[in-house]
């Protein structure tokens, strides 16, 4: 009985550790869906459900050419402090109070992944 319990515990810990690992890799994707897809689109192409009502169009994050022109620090700053901080539209909100810095970096990595670009 005690032995079974120990095995069950080890198994549970392994499962939980596995989930935590997977979650980490997915973090940027999950955050993007929650906070960004409403404007930038479920496929990150700039055509979110709100885009039709906006005077300035949300950026297409799959567009490698434009994404290549940005450093990771540019992207980080745009997300944390909003469009205004990088001389772009205020319609890109500042997310620094909603999303931790660590998670904003996860978003930057996710943007690099979907645009197949680098810093």
């Amino acid at each position, binding site marked *: 009985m005690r032995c079974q319990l120990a095995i069950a515990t080890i198994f549970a810990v392994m499962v939980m550790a596995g989930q935590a690992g997977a979650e980490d890799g997915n973090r940027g994707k*999950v*955050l993007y*869906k*929650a*906070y960004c*897809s*409403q*404007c930038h*689109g*479920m*496929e990150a192409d700039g*055509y*979110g*459900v*709100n*885009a*039709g*009502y*906006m*005077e300035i169009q949300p950026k297409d994050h799959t567009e490698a050419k434009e994404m290549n022109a940005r450093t990771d620090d540019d992207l980080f700053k745009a997300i944390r402090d*909003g469009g205004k901080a990088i001389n772009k539209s*205020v*319609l890109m*909100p*500042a*997310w620094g*109070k*909603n999303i931790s810095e660590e998670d904003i970096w996860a978003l930057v990595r996710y943007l690099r992944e979907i645009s197949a670009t680098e810093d």
Partner: protein
Amino acid sequence: MFRSTIKKLFLGMIVVSSGAAAEGPSDRLKEECSACHALSEVTLDAQARMAQKAPPLYYAGTKYRRDWMVSWLQNPARIRPGGMFSGNHTVVTDDGDDIDPITLQDHVKLSANNATEITDYLMTLTAKSDLIIAGEYKPKSVSKRMGEMNFIKFKGCGSCHQAEPDYGGVSGPELYTVFNRLKPDYIVSFIRDPIVWQGVSLMPSTGLNNREIYKLVDYLKLLSGEN
């Protein structure tokens, strides 16, 4: 832990069976409404927020206006054009993303008696009232044109919220009836910091100052007055 689960199951059975004998508003809420609405404190993360089925009601007395709730429960017109989380109701089309209205459920309708009884009970749930500064909001007048420009262009609220039926962003609740729905001091507090209410918010917390917040609420008041 196992024992406490059994205890909970057992307690649940007692609640259900006694509910059948003499049904009060709090029993009805637990049985019918708690499937979607949180009736006790929960703190969400982004993932849980996306899965959230309905707005929490455990601080309803702090947030909602009584008269609005009594009438809405009898005739529940849609408040969130994109549902609780728009990403769960979005279809990707060649013309861009769109809300698929078929995936949005109609809300349960209550009789006048039940609506009044349940609302009066909900109004006693005043958790989180420490986040409100009572009497803070003092209405001032604002012109429709200036208010709208501020709301859409300068503050970017119109990207996610409708300021009139069928016009404006669809990922947030419509705001043309919000002043009739919610207590003014709650609206002020929510705009000041949307995150504190549920531990997470899909609305950006942008640190507006009091004057900017009151101006926005003046505009929301104007919108609701016209409807």
